């Protein structure tokens, strides 16, 4: 499944050029996606997989993470997706004790991800030997004016982010539950 996803991403993204989108432009209705996955592994183990802002290799769509600033607020990273699309992100909050980090997309082509003004929090909560990973995102649709085309409307934005989250959470679960 993961491989199929990556292959699809690779194919879809290859031909796309990246254009700057104003990060602060939006219409009136912000969207949100809030997803969780239960994992049979302790929170510390899960956090080891996802807690480094400079390494998003746990996500099946991400080919490469390049960045600076470590895990300090203000740190930057550039995600190169399998196939070549890129997403630039900045870390806004990092709490290792609480197993939680928040970041924003600073630049993405709406053809790569049809959203604007995207912010997100990824966190792990432990319950004994188990844990729950939560991935929350807030964003506006890709088309910032009235009456958007279907591929850049609210539903398209929610669907795209949901897809990214579901694929990522499934991969975290697989990685965390594998081996000791």
């Amino acid at each position, binding site marked *: 499944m993961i491989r199929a996803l990556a292959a*699809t991403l690779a194919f879809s993204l290859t031909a796309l050029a990246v254009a700057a989108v104003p990060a602060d432009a939006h219409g009136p*209705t*912000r969207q949100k996606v809030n997803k969780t996955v239960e994992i049979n592994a302790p929170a510390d183990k899960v956090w080891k997989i996802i807690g480094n802002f400079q390494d998003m290799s746990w996500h099946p769509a991400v080919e490469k993470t390049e960045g600076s600033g470590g895990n300090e607020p203000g740190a930057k990273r550039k995600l190169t997706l399998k196939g070549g699309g890129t997403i630039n992100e900045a870390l806004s909050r990092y709490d290792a004790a609480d197993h939680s980090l928040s970041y924003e997309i600073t630049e993405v082509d709406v053809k790569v991800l049809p959203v604007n003004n995207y912010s997100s929090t990824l966190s792990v909560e432990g319950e004994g030997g188990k844990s729950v990973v939560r991935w929350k995102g807030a964003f506006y649709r890709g088309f910032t004016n009235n009456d958007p085309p279907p*591929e850049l409307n609210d539903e398209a934005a929610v669907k795209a982010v*949901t897809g990214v989250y579901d694929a990522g959470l499934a991969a975290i679960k697989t990685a965390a539950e594998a081996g000791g």
Partner: protein
Amino acid sequence: MQPLAVRAGTLRRSFVAALASIVCVAVVPAKGASAGSGGREHTGAVPTAFAYVTNQGSETVSIVAIGEGGEKMQVTGEIKVPGKPAGIALSPDRRTVYVTAPEAKELVVIDRATADVRARVRAGEGPLGIAVNPVTGDVLVADWYEHKLLVLDATTLAVKGAVKTGQSPSGIAVTPDGGRILTTDRDSNQVSIIDAKSLAVVATVPVGERPFGIAIDADGQRAYTANVKSNDVSVIDIATARTVATYKVGRRPYAVALARGRAFVTDQYSATVTVIDLTSGEKLTSIPVGEHPEGIWSTASGSHVFIACWMENTLERVDTGTLKVTGKVEVGDGPRAFGDFLVEEAPSRAPR
């Protein structure tokens, strides 16, 4: 606006479609409020004050007994409002609730006595911010897309006037004497000061970047804008139409409420309410609240401010003396409550 490469649309759609077909698609969990029907039933200590909270995701307005005396907050009713309701305001007699529904492009009029929608009328292309002139009762709607302030007659609900503002007017505030209307023109980084009678723009005032919410003090002298992008609050002297101070707040400030000589500012990305002493200009504290705090409003007495937390789906109560969260309740999905959303039982009160 960014250019759209239509040719690439098919490719991108296939990316989205492929993702969606591979992974299991689940709808955002609708936690919803455990609301009864009707607006006025309540139990225990009799609450005398209510909040009307626009829930953009669930397309409802939650009616919440706010327990100003410190009682437990509780949802007492829910009203269906299609069209992604966001902005909210109340009539001078506090009997009518006005809500903007941007997706439906409508002004929705709710009768408090029946807790039901009384009327829905078309209001421009992108109605978002809303306010009521406390003296004339005129309903003022900011049209985000057409860059206008619309003036609707409270009785006929007809658009009786329109003013060209800057780009993407967002928040609206009116001076207590009803004489001046201020709009935050988000994409022009300015505030328009409009004469309420002649509907002439008498001044535009440069403020911080991307001003959104706006509040005017009880004297009608100063206005405070929450500047989303520059992470600060601009203080405007209305008479001289100048920015006289700028206060740093948390990240992505959304709206401002005034109480006890303090400004309470919702910081969306920081998940805090920044409190600023308006005499000294000093920041007093940042109060952690639910994620993505948005709409904020003060009780008439200034005893509490109430905050709609968009990501958390809560309405939270902050004691303006102790500066602590003293209550919260789950409302519908995606609460915004952008505007005046608090009703106290006294039929009228001094505007803030």
